[in-house]
């Protein structure tokens, strides 16, 4: 019979992530929940921004945390706990993306693609982030995932390559393509500069036409 008296309960705020993982492996039933509590907002942002659908994001996170819970006992601290947990979450999101048969189009509700809704300096921060968020949702998944990780969440190219299981060069070039599209949609590229070289991908057709007269 195991009693919890011998189990170190380290769910205090001061514990490191690695302490929590060890405590979980040693049988502390609350350590893993505490770990999840610490990271869930960031993971939620990644899942939601990657998958776009809140229900799917919640499903993916639940699946990811359960599988992390089961795997945590064998976790070895060769990688950062956060990276490890993130990898599991990103993989769960990627799995869902792959399983998804169709990719629903999320239209920009207030303005057509490529029509900046207002002069940028006249917009509030909130409006800007809404517009950026919407523009991000329009990117193809293969570009959105690296952009979310590198540009929004601040992961390094190397970490992102590891998380997504692709080469660093691929991360960079997908980020480059995605940023070029976003620069157009967000109105940073003035019409006379934006040439027809950014592929439309069925998203920015209107915008493409608009700029063709250059």
């Amino acid at each position, binding site marked *: 019979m*195991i*009693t919890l008296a011998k189990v170190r309960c380290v769910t205090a705020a001061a514990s490191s992530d690695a302490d929590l993982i060890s405590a979980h492996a040693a049988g502390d*039933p609350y350590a893993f*929940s505490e770990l999840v509590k610490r990271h869930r907002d960031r993971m939620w*942002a990644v899942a939601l921004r990657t998958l776009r659908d809140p*229900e799917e994001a919640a499903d993916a996170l*639940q699946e990811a945390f359960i599988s992390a819970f089961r795997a945590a006992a064998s976790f070895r601290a060769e990688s950062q706990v956060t990276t490890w947990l993130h990898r599991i979450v990103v993989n769960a999101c990627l799995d869902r993306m792959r399983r998804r048969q169709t990719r629903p189009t999320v239209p920009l509700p207030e303005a057509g693609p490529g029509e900046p809704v207002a002069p940028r300096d006249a917009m509030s921060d909130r409006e800007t982030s809404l517009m*950026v968020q919407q523009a991000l949702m329009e990117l193809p998944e293969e570009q959105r995932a690296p952009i979310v990780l590198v540009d929004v969440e601040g992961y390094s190219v190397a970490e992102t390559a590891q998380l997504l299981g692709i080469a660093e060069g691929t991360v960079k070039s997908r980020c480059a393509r995605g940023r070029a599209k976003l*620069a157009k949609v967000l109105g940073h590229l003035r019409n006379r500069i934006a040439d027809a*070289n950014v592929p439309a991908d069925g998203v920015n057709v209107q915008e493409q036409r608009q700029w063709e007269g250059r």
Partner: protein
Amino acid sequence: MTGMERVPMGPPWSVDLIADLHAGVLPPEVAAQLRPRVEADPEAREVLQALDATLADLEALPPIPMPDHVAARIDAALAAEARPAAPVVSLDEARKRRNRRLGLGGGVLVAAAAAFGVVFAVSPGGQQANTPGDAAPAPTTNSNVSAPLSLKRDELGSAVGEVLKAQNYGPLETPDRLAGCLKGGGITSSGNPLGISPINLEGKDAVMAILPAGLGKYRLVVLDPTTCGPDQPAGVLADTTVGQR
């Protein structure tokens, strides 16, 4: 001179090429030669600035906190996951842990809890089984000792994480009494609750039970232990479902 011929001619250069340069995609020797030429061209420089502005927009995106109902659902799933592995523990140890989580000093509470000397086993099904020859159930007054969660009617969901960790019938004392109270409220539930704990609902001592309600959903039932029973629908103080819509 190697690689010289691979440096794209321009201006003008395509936005994609400038974005590649900006993102570090190009081989270093190509980038080294292209960069000064791109930076010398006003149009290309504007593209670089547009890419920088795009990066700044992305970096400035605000964090998105996880909604409470998603957090509750994940807590519940993890608690359910933790349960089969839960070892047999003595009640006073369980109370000590709970008190620690509530951030309370252990001493006084441990002394009170030690008076129980009751041992319960948590089986994989999440059932609470009293050991043979067990002492009488704890007197209700002692349930106050562990400072039940104080909740308002509209914030029941916030207690899900805590209650799921508990199998404390409090003043209801037994699964049979719980079943009777649920029946009184017309609530059918097979098996034991996922979690149960005494709470304080808007100043009134009560017991919250969490019942499964389909995939990713939890039915929160708050019972008045003094009035609820098989023929007492009024004993159900609150009944709500949380989780996935």
